[in-house]
């Protein structure tokens, strides 16, 4: 293992960075688009089933196929990979945002409206804070998917830890396969743990005592 790090250490760090960069941007875009879209869907009951259906269909396209489909449009490299992974990240976040907001106690929404909050005020002050745990679990799920699938992105020349894994497969080198996949697993676990911390931070307090 020490020799592996001595030989590939610099390259490994670079690939980890690429991996974080690709999955991070894809996920960030996913959050930026899916959360507001999910909120909007709660106000458009009819459109919501259609749009969530479409997102579900996108989810069923095999990851490799989706990545390949990006090549005619965006060519090869990081950009098509980011776009494909972004599409993948949408559904869990979208669905959880939608379900999270819909799951907020109707009497709270009724009280908010009845006291004279506008729809936007109700969303920002009441519904989103109450839905944070559900939305965050959607984001955490997406993050795990995206980090895992970024490994596939190496197929379309995006780089990342997938390069190690596919090289290892081609050359029948177990050390390269492990050297690529173990960091992917660790990265996914780390990101999930960090997002878990963030979830606790974002979830509003409901008691005056500190939670243990």
């Amino acid at each position, binding site marked *: 293992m020490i020799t592996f790090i001595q030989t590939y250490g610099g390259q490994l760090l670079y690939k980890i960075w690429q991996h974080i960069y690709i999955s991070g941007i894809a996920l960030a875009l996913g959050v930026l688009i899916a959360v507001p879209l999910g909120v909007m869907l709660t106000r458009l009951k009819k459109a919501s089933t259609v749009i969530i259906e479409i997102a579900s269909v996108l989810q069923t396209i095999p990851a490799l196929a989706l990545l390949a489909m990006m090549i005619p449009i965006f060519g090869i490299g990081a950009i098509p990979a980011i776009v494909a992974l972004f599409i993948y990240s949408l559904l869990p976040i979208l669905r959880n945002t939608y379900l999270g907001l819909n799951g907020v*106690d109707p*009497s*709270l929404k*009724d*009280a*908010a*409206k*009845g*006291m*004279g*909050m*506008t729809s936007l*005020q109700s969303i920002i*002050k*009441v519904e989103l*804070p*109450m839905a944070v745990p559900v939305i965050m679990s959607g984001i955490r799920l997406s993050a795990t998917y995206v980090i895992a699938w970024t490994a596939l992105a190496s197929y379309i020349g995006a780089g990342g830890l997938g390069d190690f894994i596919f090289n290892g497969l081609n050359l029948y080198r177990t050390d390269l396969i492990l050297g690529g996949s173990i960091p992917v697993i660790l990265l996914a676990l780390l990101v999930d743990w960090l997002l878990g911390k963030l979830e606790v931070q974002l979830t*509003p*307090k*409901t*008691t*005056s005592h500190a939670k243990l």
Partner: protein
Amino acid sequence: MELVALKRMELTYVFLEMKHLSKVYGGKKAVDDFNLSVAKGEFICFIGTSGSGKTTTMRMINRMLNPSSGSIELEGEDVLKADPVKLRRKIGYVIQNIGLMPHMTIRDNITIVPKLLKWSEDKRNERAKEMIKMVELPEDYLDRYPSELSGGQQQRIGVVRALAADQDLILMDEPFGALDPITRESLQDFVKDLQERLGKTLIFVTHDMDEALKLATRIVVMSHGKMVQVATPDEILQHPANEFVENLIGKDRLIQAKPSITTVGQVMYNNAVSITPGRSLKEALKLMHEKRVDTLLVTDDMGILKGYVDIEQIDYNYNTATSVDDVMTRKVFYVNENSIIRDTVERILKRGYKNVPVVDQDKKLVGIVTRASLVDIVYDALWGEPDATAHTKKEPVTDIKEEQKVGDGKP
């Protein structure tokens, strides 16, 4: 002239007016031609079974629902043309499930509407303190979260939250339905006090007749979207509009309410046997024999009650006295025909009188209450529920007076 004056008075009097209000859901009329004028400071209870349209009607007032037709005016302004968001900030709103924001402190919850109205932070804090004082909770509760309060405390906060921005009209949708009876009672007292002391106008939806009878100045009974009866609690108890209202009130409650709304005049016998003081004892005796009674009430020519004479007095003095006037007892216990049975029954029974004369305002004899008629009343009152006895114990009566001795009557 008079009509104009009346109209003008009406204009200042009407605070909230609903005319021909209807709400149609998929062809079904949830509310059908609802008409009500509410004066400032009234406590209106909407009562009915579920699906009667009571909540729907209430929710149209603050535009949580839009009426299918009809008009609503609040302080002379057309509610249906108002901006619903601004309108709702003017109207207090309390719901059954309390609806406190679990992620906001009590302070933030109380001051939600003041904050929406962009009050300064100092003013908001001050108001929060006033409100917590009003519900008799310590000030440090302001920094707690709703989950740290009991259900009753939470709903108290829910109620004052609806007052925090000086709303004059407060809508309450079965606010105490989920609370235990003791907590509910104390909250009922609390909101009644708000109405009486602060002059707030309340529209209160409930399905609990006891609650409506206790709180309302007027009760609106609804069934299948229609108004069945609009009346004060006493009127509803005395004259339920139809069988539906009667059932809603409940047989037990009607019976229990009987002693508290029935007057002596309604249960007395009209055929009191009386005689004038000038008559001879012989005539008196003959009358007793004819009517098969042992006591005669003595009235003057105008029918004013003067006293009574019984068989014992006649027997004892038959040889020495000549007229009724000589032997009659001038000190007589009587009751007014308008006094309430509940207030008099106990008095009468305690004194052990067999018969009590009933008089009108001018002290003219109009009838008599016998022990038999009292037994009926007491029987009815006790028949309903075992705790009905506690119900009859009320403040002492002022209607019953004992006549002072006039002159020097014989023992």
